[in-house]
């Protein structure tokens, strides 16, 4: 999740970092906060973290996807907190309902929580690979004997069904907004 490649103690956390799994290192790492990564993982600023390069290479998830999904989720999460605080401030100063820019921002923020949720699930599900149950059962060994065509059919079916529901949901959200504001 934090793309720490080499085992070490007092590991810093970099504010700007681009991991590259092909070289097993970060292609960019800037603005390290000393010992913070160690603290987050072990509870002590001098704690030791086992690096990704010291783990069995066939037991690593795709590092970049997990790394960026986690950042996408936390950045969006922070954005929501800031938006909420901004709303609180505007409410206190009585400008909440007249601040066009803020209200527009909120409207365009409607899809963001969904993206944050999906990114978060990516972190847990992809981050767990190649294990289905960590240390016990690999995903490849957990396959059922259901024919691939059946699985494909079910994926198409449920995706199509959810797509219909999504269209309906967007329609209802729009309707609710129009009903409440009287503005198209």
């Amino acid at each position: 999740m934090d793309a720490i490649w080499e085992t070490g103690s007092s590991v810093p956390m970099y504010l700007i970092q681009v991991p590259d799994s092909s070289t097993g290192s970060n292609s960019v790492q800037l603005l390290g906060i000393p010992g913070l990564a160690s603290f987050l993982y072990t509870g002590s600023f001098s704690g030791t973290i086992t690096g990704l390069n010291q783990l069995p290479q066939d037991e690593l998830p795709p590092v970049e996807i997990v790394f960026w999904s986690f950042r996408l989720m936390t950045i969006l999460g922070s954005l929501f907190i800031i938006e909420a605080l901004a709303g609180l401030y505007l409410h206190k100063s009585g400008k909440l309902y007249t601040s066009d820019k803020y209200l527009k921002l909120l409207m365009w923020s409607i899809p963001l929580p969904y993206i944050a949720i999906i990114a978060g699930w990516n972190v847990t599900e992809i981050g767990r690979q190649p294990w289905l149950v960590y240390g016990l059962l690999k995903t490849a060994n957990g396959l059922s004997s259901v024919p691939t065509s059946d699985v494909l059919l079910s994926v198409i079916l449920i995706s199509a069904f959810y797509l219909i529901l999504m269209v309906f949901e967007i329609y209802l959200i729009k309707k609710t907004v129009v009903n409440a504001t009287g503005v198209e």
Partner: protein
Amino acid sequence: MFDFLTHNTLAVIWFFLWCVIWGVYFIVDSFSLGAGLLAPFIATDKVQRIQIQRSVGPFWGGNEVWLILAVGGTFAAFPLVFSKMFTFLYLPMMLLLIGLVARGISVEYLHKEDNPRIQKALTWGWFVGSLLISLVLGVAFANFFKGLEIALGGVYNGTLPGLFGPYALIGGVLFVLMSTTSGALWINVKTEGALAAKAGDLAKKSTLIVLVLVLVYLAYSFMGIEGFTSNYSATPALYLLPVLAVAAAVLAVFFAKKDRGFPAFCSNLLALLFVVQSGLASIYPYLLKSSVSLEYGIDIFEAASSHMTLSIMLGAAVVLVPIVIIYQLWVYTLFKETIKEAEQVDY
């Protein structure tokens, strides 16, 4: 203190609980499914549609909890059966899932949107969802009673069309019609005005059809399904189950004819319960019976979880199931008033 609860005893207790939970699900959801099955046909206008929706609105979610409990209970008590069931019946379970989502969405959104096209689509969504749920479960359980094509080593040779044999189809249609009857009688009891009268008239005919189908289904089970009678021969007291099923179906016809909606409703539920239990009693000790050869089936002792899991869950079930029953009964008393022909929805 609980030394008498050996692993085998616990497995038998959980089989019994499994039958009870599925039985409860079948009867409590039958009227919400039935209301959905009837909605596009007996409601003439929006007022009546909302009457139907309100008659099941506060209840359907609680009813579905029993399905979650039944499936979750299968997973926790008999994990082997859970994995086999969802592997063997992958596509039917998929249809069930879509039915559940469609039903839930439709019934909850029905009164939230005035656009007539959307109302129409949701009414039909409610129908299709309810039909999928009742048909798939009816067909699935008929197949459980008949046995799945499980060969040596637990290899499944069945096909999707193979699941829709005549016996399974009768089971599916029976469950759909019993749910429809249940829904009609519920609407009859729960609403007022023209809708209630129409539903009552419908139930007069449908209880008769159900009685005939119950007789056909039970006769087919006892005469045409291999191994169905073995438990009955060993324990003749079990014959009470099908006898009670038929008796309850007869009572449903009788009460429906006399326009006594509530006793007719209860009789129909009992008929449904005893039909299901007649089938479940026949498969013991198997959960997934094999139609190829009995010894290939998966029995409760082989499928049961560890002794510790079963005991912990038994403790949890003894405490929590009564709580669930109490709060669900409370919901029924809370929304006990009959639904008049008013347009507003106040919850």
